[in-house]
């Protein structure tokens, strides 16, 4: 046991900073040109295929995909700074988010050569858009309870079941679906699961919107009615779906999108305090400090992942603190804001969006209750 949950820090060197500044300058130009309006939680809510393709053209997609598959062959650390810069400016990155974060790395690790050739170049160009199909009705945080069935048929599998909370499925080309390829053994619930690459335009796929409480359509129910998946679209090993999915969790949980979803609101609040539209209050400094510390912590985790060190617990720490902080920023700015006092369109728009998105921050990708259990396990308590 060690009380040290998070790997030692590292200092960013000029080669990384130069990349950061290059991305930052491009994004400032884009904002100035009106190519996008900065917003909150854009990795879920702002979908722009043109912008995504432009990033691909500039070499900022497929960052960790080797060049032989059309990627950039760069490091997780370089991807980290690109990701941070995209998020803080509130750029529309939803279209490539899932592919860039987890589909690409999963294909690299578990995909066949044919699968890599089929998908990675398109992902790196921002042309192939992926979703992810994990959750099911009533599964919640208990992913092992998925009930989507994969039945063996000649030359492949037939998938039947329903996936929910599939963000962007109505716009995406394909998704990874976790399904039960062998009957449930209650004593070994994590066995008998497999991952499949599903073409979302295949026969038998029906996509229905789930409208969020603010009236927006980001999520979907994806019904799979005997969808035929050829053998060459099984990802990795049949029956190893659980361990494949689990191995990606540190990447999924420790990224800057668990810290920066409301950064544009924080920045607008800093401006409003400077302008006298919000009262000066030490809470701003407190939140800025936490974001800065999480930036360091998230970077430390990326460094560890780059070195192939185990960082599951550290990733859980980043996600718990980061997503809590994202939501606290929304609530904090809300407590400073008086209705009827002054009209601040930009701040109001960001604040309302942040409040409406907030409940998801500490639920998606593993609830904070589950993750605090993961941390307790990392501390040797379970």
């Amino acid at each position, binding site marked *: 046991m060690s009380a040290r949950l998070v790997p030692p820090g590292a200092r960013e060197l000029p080669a990384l900073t130069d990349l950061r500044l290059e991305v930052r300058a491009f994004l400032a130009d884009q904002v100035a040109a009106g190519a996008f309006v900065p917003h909150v939680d854009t990795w879920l809510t702002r979908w722009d295929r043109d912008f995504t393709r432009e990033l691909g053209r500039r070499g900022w997609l497929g960052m960790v995909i080797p060049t032989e598959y059309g990627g950039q062959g760069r490091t997780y650390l370089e991807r980290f700074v690109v990701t941070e810069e995209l998020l803080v400016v509130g750029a529309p990155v939803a279209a490539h988010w899932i592919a860039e974060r987890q589909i690409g790395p999963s294909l690299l690790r578990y995909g066949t050569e044919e699968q890599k050739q089929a998908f990675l170049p398109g992902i790196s160009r921002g042309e192939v858009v992926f979703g992810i199909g994990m959750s099911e009705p009533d599964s919640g945080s208990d992913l092992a309870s998925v009930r989507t069935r994969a039945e063996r048929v000649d030359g492949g599998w037939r998938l039947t079941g329903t996936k929910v909370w599939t963000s962007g499925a109505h716009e995406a080309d394909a998704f990874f679906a976790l399904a039960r390829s062998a009957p449930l053994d209650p004593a070994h619930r994590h066995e008998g699961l497999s991952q499949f690459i599903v073409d979302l335009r295949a026969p038998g796929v029906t996509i229905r919107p789930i*409208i*969020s409480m603010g009236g927006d359509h980001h999520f979907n129910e994806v019904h799979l009615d005997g969808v035929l998946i050829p053998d060459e679209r099984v990802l990795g090993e049949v029956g190893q779906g659980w361990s494949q999915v689990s191995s990606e969790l540190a990447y999924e949980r420790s990224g800057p999108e668990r810290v920066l979803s409301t950064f544009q609101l924080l920045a607008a609040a800093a401006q409003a305090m400077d302008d006298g539209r919000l009262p000066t209050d030490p809470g701003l400094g407190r939140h800025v400090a936490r974001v800065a510390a999480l930036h360091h912590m998230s970077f430390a985790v990326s460094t560890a992942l780059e070195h192939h060190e185990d960082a599951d617990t550290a990733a859980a720490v980043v996600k718990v603190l980061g997503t809590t902080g994202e939501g606290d920023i929304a609530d904090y700015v809300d407590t400073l804001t008086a209705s009827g006092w002054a009209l601040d369109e930009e701040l109001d728009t960001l604040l309302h969006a942040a409040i409406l998105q907030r409940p998801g921050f500490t639920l998606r990708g593993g609830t*904070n209750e589950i993750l605090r259990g993961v941390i307790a396990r990392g501390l040797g308590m379970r």
Partner: protein
Amino acid sequence: MTDLRDLAEPTTPDPDLVGVLTDLFADYRATRATPTAVVDLDRDLWQRLEQLGMTRLTGRESSGGSGGGWVDAAALLGLAAAAAAPVPLAEHDLLGGWLLEAAGLPNDGGLRTVCRPDPSGVALNVTWARDASRIVALWEDRDQWRVADVPIDRVAIEERRNLAGEPSDTVEFDLDDLENGTVVAHEIGEQFHLRGALARSAQVVGAMERVVEVVLAHVREREQFGRPIGRFQAVQHLVADIASETALARAATDAAVARAAASEWRDPGMLFAVGVAKSCVGHAASVVVRGAHQALGAIGTTLEHELHTLTRPILARRSEYGSLQDWDETLTALASSAGHDRLWTLITTGRAKPSSGQRPPHDNA
């Protein structure tokens, strides 16, 4: 033994009234449409409330009101908020109707909202403005407070919506219409902000109590890892916390309502009492909204779920009639002015100084 009735007076609303309203809103809840992101006035419900005398509950009987007091009115606001009923009870009766009476202006019963235009005649975030037949305006004019009852067709309305999706419009008055406002007593101008703040507190507490019920029902029913999630200690503590904060907000609000009712708002401690309510309600809102959505999980973020019909108005209303920060600053000023020796007197009487009167800051709701 001392007679208990000489020591403390319970302040509970008329049980018959509560019974009627409970039935009414249960019926409303059972028959209303699925939730929407944009919320408009429910004129049918308004008419039913009107027929029961609820839309002018606190108006004088001589002017067509029901002659009720703040204790009953707060109960009405809370029950309506728990049902997420889109009706301007606070604006129309407790604020608008009251201002008309204070100004001696006639009240035809037509739906009203209220606001405080700035010197250029503009008022921001005027709830339900587009739905009103007239807007009761209150403003300060060279140390005098004035009231006018302006027909809707005399104002320009820019339609906007608040976080709850309700109309919360920008209203621009013709300055001519404001010129001949009726002068009202100084205390009216000062009370307006407090009455608005306390009405909002009563609404938020009512909605939070309903949130606790929704959460309890969910955690008993929803199963994960093979048992109801309410069996997990973490969920139990989370729910205990939101229920406790709601109870504290209720205690603070009831105390302010009781003081208002007993003194007909003349008690100099009303600023403190309303501040305590607004502060406790506002901080409770942070805990309750976050905790409820966390307990409900993704399903609670969907448009069709009841939860957001409560949590969105909770947050929208806690920032009306002063932000949470404004009220904490007001209380800080009162507490530091009371100082070491009178802090407890402030808490028990609401008075920071032996003879104090203090205006709230930023009182331009």
